[in-house]
């Protein structure tokens, strides 16, 4: 990379001098695990690694990753958001692609980072250009597999009936709706049943769920009721925040519904006990 200041934290994988993948070598993917997956459910991270490698990617996990900055960004703290964004860009910009197993975090990187570098000086320092170039190679995991790597099926097996919740950011900011359903349709033994209003928010909303706990509870109660009405035995979604919210409510209400990240099922990595459920 010819960009200044990137050497100190960039992983500089050999040969990854240009951001665009050339066909002679596998695309180098920087896996942005997301803070929740990293801390609470690493098995989603390993599912992502398996899916990406199977799709022909070379996966790297820079250690200098913490969070995408959304807690600060959505609380109005632009200074910390920007500092974290700089940190993420420095750690990941040398890869061909940056992939996150979360629509919300991927949308932060792809849709919101450039806006954090829109001050007058950002053109001169190169940060505006860096942020834009970076954002263009950021993807959510499932849509990356489907839209970029053209994966048709992951060839795994899962016995059960699942219902899928469309997490808001992935759905509305990144247009992720058909990709997970298409890949799930290719899973042997899996039956899909849609819930009422799969596109309606689960009430998580990051800090919203603790700032407005009662309203969040009302929203997730409605969501859980829609989920249970389907008769499915497993709930899937693409964002761990939403999954923890819905799983927490299902557990509290004594439901036996199993809750998993969609990547776990697509990767055939369901040995780990579910986020909620009796297994």
């Amino acid at each position, binding site marked *: 990379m010819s960009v200044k200041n990137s050497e*100190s*934290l960039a*992983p500089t*994988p050999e040969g990854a001098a240009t951001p665009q993948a050339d066909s002679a070598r596998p695309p180098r993917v920087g896996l942005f695990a997301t*803070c929740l997956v*990293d*801390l*609470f*459910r*690493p098995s989603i*991270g*390993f599912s992502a690694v398996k899916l990406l490698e199977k799709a022909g990617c070379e996966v*790297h*996990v*820079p*250690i*200098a*990753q*913490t969070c995408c*900055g959304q*807690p*600060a*960004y*959505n*609380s*109005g*703290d*632009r200074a*910390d958001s920007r*500092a*974290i964004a700089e940190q993420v860009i420095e*750690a990941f910009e040398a890869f061909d692609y940056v992939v996150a197993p979360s629509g919300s975090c991927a949308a932060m990187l792809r849709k919101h980072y450039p806006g954090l570098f829109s001050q007058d000086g950002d053109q001169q320092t190169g940060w505006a250009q860096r942020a834009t170039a970076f954002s263009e190679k950021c993807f959510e995991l499932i849509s990356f597999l489907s839209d970029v790597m053209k994966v048709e099926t992951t060839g795994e097996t899962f016995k059960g009936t699942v219902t899928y919740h469309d997490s*808001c950011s992935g759905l*509305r*900011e990144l247009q992720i709706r058909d990709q997970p359903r298409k890949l799930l349709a290719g899973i042997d033994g899996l039956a899909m049943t849609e819930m009422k209003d799969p*596109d*309606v*928010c689960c*009430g998580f*909303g*990051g800090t*919203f769920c*603790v*700032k*407005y*706990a*009662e*309203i*969040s*509870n*009302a929203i*997730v109660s409605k969501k859980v009721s829609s989920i249970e009405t389907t008769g499915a035995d497993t709930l899937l979604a693409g964002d761990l925040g939403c999954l*923890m*919210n819905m799983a*927490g*409510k299902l*557990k*509290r209400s004594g439901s036996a519904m199993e809750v998993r990240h969609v990547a776990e099922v697509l990767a055939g990595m369901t040995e780990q*006990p579910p986020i*909620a459920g009796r297994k």
Partner: protein
Amino acid sequence: MELSSHKFKEQAGRALGNAQLQKALLNVEKGFVAKRQLAVDALPEFDALRDNARDIKNHVLAHLDLYLEAYEKKVVASGGVVHWAETAEDARRIVLEICRKANARTVTKGKSMITEEIALNDHLTANGIEPVETDLGEYIIQLRGEHPSHIIAPAVHLNKSQVEGDFRRVHTHLREDRDLSEPVSLLGEARDVLRQRYLSADVGITGANFLVAETGSSVIVTNEGNGDLTQTLGKVHIVMASIEKIVPTLEDTAQILRVLARSATGQDMSVYTTFSTGPRRADDPDGPEEYHVVLLDNGRSSMLGTEYQDMLRCIRCGACMNHCPVYHAVGGHAYGSVYPGPMGAVLTPSLNGIEKTGQLPNASTFCGRCESVCPMRIPLPKMMRHWREREFERHLTPAAQRYGLKFWAFFARRPRLYRAAVAVAMPILARFGGSKRRFSHLPLAGGWTRHRDLPAPEGKTFVQQWQQRGHRRSEVAQ
């Protein structure tokens, strides 16, 4: 109405505990969402029309001064009068003066959120003039002494039996044993009562969905025809509108009309779309003798050129609140402001200041459904976030939240320290989760665990395990 947005949490809590309200709120989802979707699906060019509608309003806002002056000239040319009101107080004074000059004792009113914004009814009543709301929903809430809980369905928080009770309480001149069990009988009764009021009213006040610069016309859309009777039967017609209602031409009006009703109620068009241009002309069979337009600013011009300018594209269709999970949960009154829901969460701080209204732009999950259905493509979540930024800059964010954020950011901005801390913390937390792998109580996480369990972490972090699997050398940053 008195602003009580700073009490949003308490008001929301009461709304959540109100069984009648919760039942009524189900009608918002049932009544609007599917109908809008059907209307949108039936019109392949809907998204292109949205783009066009947005562009029309953006053009107007970029040249608002010119269009306002052009509009005024046309109104004057058609025999009307334009009054400029910088503040709500100015608008109230102007309307009262016009009413007094007409020796008005009663005024009928078409549905108008602007008259709510300036609290016109209270002002007229205090000055001995009786305002009569003629939109059925507005009429009902006027009987109850309430304010609209929704910008196009003001009484959506009520059910049929409540309305029946109000009619029996107020319409004491009618037989007590009359049957009011069906909605149609309630409608019939309101129609009969209101018909007399139209005929005896001296002044009719309406809002405006559009003000057309090309012709000097004001445009209202209604489903009940009440607006037409209000504006044609009185001696004086007053149009009360805010400055951003301007559109350049009739063609532009038609363009935006095509997205308005579809977004609002799922109708192709409202039942009545009425254009008014000046007072009655010599050869007109009917119409008012005087035609006044009161143009209200009330803080809007100061939104121009700011990050909140896009909000001035709003055409008040209500789609944002119809699709909002927070509005569905608590209804409109909990917001404690004239304008509820997502559009209110952006507009209210602009009109009333962020100091007392900061709850509103915070009470959003940023699910983005409002923006996805907005016919004018207003980036509502983005503007709510801008309000949170203004709060943060001015230290209006609650202290606990602010310190919590700073504590977290301290670690998040120091990857090595963060890695060291979580490598220790997460395995401990996992162990405390026990065999059930969950927490039903956790210190500092009461907001979460009051209503749901917190799934326990698996143990070692992903990055930790990744390194231990032999990836250490190639992945270490330095």
